[in-house]
């Protein structure tokens, strides 16, 4: 069983499907080979935020702003609704130390063109009447948005299928070898697919795919546990996070403590940070942890209790609310906190698009465009030097 195509994409998460959609739109013949099923990775087990405020000023914030523009046109052109919504976001500040951290952060983002400000107690109360008295200030950006990742994957899939996409489930590659003018990939089913280009969009598993070609990338799973509440009336005007969450995203407390030789609290061990976001259906997503726990997908009572206590501390009114489900997902995490997007030197036609950590939903549309540009040999509209696989592979490439 042999077939040939222009581009073979490995992984049917939000990024693989966004790339597939964009390439199909440009008239390419595309096959997606997915190890399990659509959304089996992080994209089926995550929050729904297009969070601009959490991005460090620089290429990631620029890409997130670009992505938000793309989301607005995708909403019009994709074949099903993606529940795109702009409610704004707040990062809750509980003490002076967090306040000065966030002041610096906000100043940097403003200089990058993001509308964001620090608001005092009375504005906090107006936007979040039910928040705890312990919150002394907050950041606020009206532009933070959200999208339903499950519907986004469905929409990319349907849109690409209309343009000829072939999607294979249960189809992990067993070998990927160079061929004249491209690559030959053999799947577990025995089918061999020849393609001009291969795109590795396997999220936290991307390094496993690279190892078929004899090299590795420092992309590892960073587990996040999340709880889902029953459907409740809206709690406030915006979605919220804690300044502590941003701090742990920028630099995990656990790592800092470990370096200082101090014992960790359970919160630190789990990399606990507060994220509280509403969904269209009225369920709230309450999170989350950031753990290095390998590929263990279980949720555990200790972590869920920490998450539960934390949300009650910020919103005491939730004491009477039930949570109906919990889940864990694997953020594809890199050692420098930046995704890997680019062609691998010495392996012409082999591209990586993975390692988006906690931003992969927000960045999916722009990732689709950039990778399609790279595959077509066009110069993308961003300087991708900082994202290139080469930064991890040294001068001689893979």
């Amino acid at each position: 069983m042999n077939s040939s195509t222009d581009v073979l994409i490995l992984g049917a998460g939000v990024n693989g499907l966004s790339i597939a959609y964009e390439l199909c739109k440009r008239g390419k013949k595309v096959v997606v080979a997915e190890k399990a099923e659509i959304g089996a990775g992080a994209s089926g087990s995550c929050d729904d935020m297009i969070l601009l405020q959490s991005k460090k000023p620089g290429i990631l914030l620029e890409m997130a702003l670009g992505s938000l523009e793309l989301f607005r046109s995708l909403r019009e052109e994709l074949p099903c609704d993606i529940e795109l919504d702009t409610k704004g976001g707040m990062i809750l500040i509980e003490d002076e130390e967090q306040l000065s951290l966030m002041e610096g952060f906000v100043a940097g983002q403003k200089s990058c063109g993001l509308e964001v400000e620090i608001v005092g107690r009375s504005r906090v109360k107006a936007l979040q009447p039910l928040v705890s008295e312990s919150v002394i200030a907050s950041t606020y950006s009206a532009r933070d948005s959200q999208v339903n990742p499950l519907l986004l994957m469905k929409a990319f899939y349907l849109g690409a299928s209309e343009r000829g996409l072939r999607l294979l489930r249960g189809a992990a590659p067993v070998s990927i070898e160079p061929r004249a003018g491209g690559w030959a990939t053999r799947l577990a089913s025995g089918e061999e697919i020849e393609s001009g280009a291969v795109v590795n969009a396997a999220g936290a598993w991307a390094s496993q795919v690279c190892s078929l070609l004899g090299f590795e990338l420092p992309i590892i799973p960073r587990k996040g546990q999340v709880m889902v509440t029953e459907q409740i009336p809206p709690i406030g005007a915006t979605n919220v996070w804690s300044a502590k969450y941003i701090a742990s995203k920028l630099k995990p407390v656990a790592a800092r403590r470990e370096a200082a030789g101090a014992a960790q609290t359970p919160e630190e061990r789990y990399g606990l940070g507060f994220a509280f976001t509403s969904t269209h259906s009225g369920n709230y997503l309450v999170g989350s942890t950031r753990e290095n726990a390998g590929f263990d997908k279980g949720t555990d009572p200790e972590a869920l209790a920490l998450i539960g206590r934390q949300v009650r501390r910020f919103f005491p009114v939730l004491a009477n609310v039930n949570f109906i489900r919990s889940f864990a997902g694997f953020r594809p995490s890199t050692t420098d906190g930046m995704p890997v997007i680019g062609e691998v030197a010495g392996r012409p036609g082999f591209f990586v698009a993975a390692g988006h950590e906690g931003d992969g939903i927000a960045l999916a549309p722009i990732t689709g465009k950039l990778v399609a540009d790279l595959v077509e040999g066009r110069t993308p509209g961003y300087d991708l030097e900082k994202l290139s696989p080469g930064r991890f592979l040294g001068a001689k490439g893979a």
Partner: protein
Amino acid sequence: MGSGDEKHICRCEEVSEDEIRAAIRSGARTVQEVKRWTRAGMGICQGRTCRRLVERMLCEELGLKPGEVEVSSFRQPVRPVSLKSFED
């Protein structure tokens, strides 16, 4: 189960038989994919009532035998838990 009737397969999320058949016809191939596309199984009972029905519809639509449809897993908590139960 004739098509066209508005019977709810998933009562918690009010997902009709037609919506589930439409999802399968447009490409959903597993219980999880149907759940992610339609919300069937995401309600307060976590699919206890509707999961089997969705499996059966996948079999019917795709001409599969019961064992060939992947079963979805339950996630903690098995019953809804009040946040009150997390005492400090």
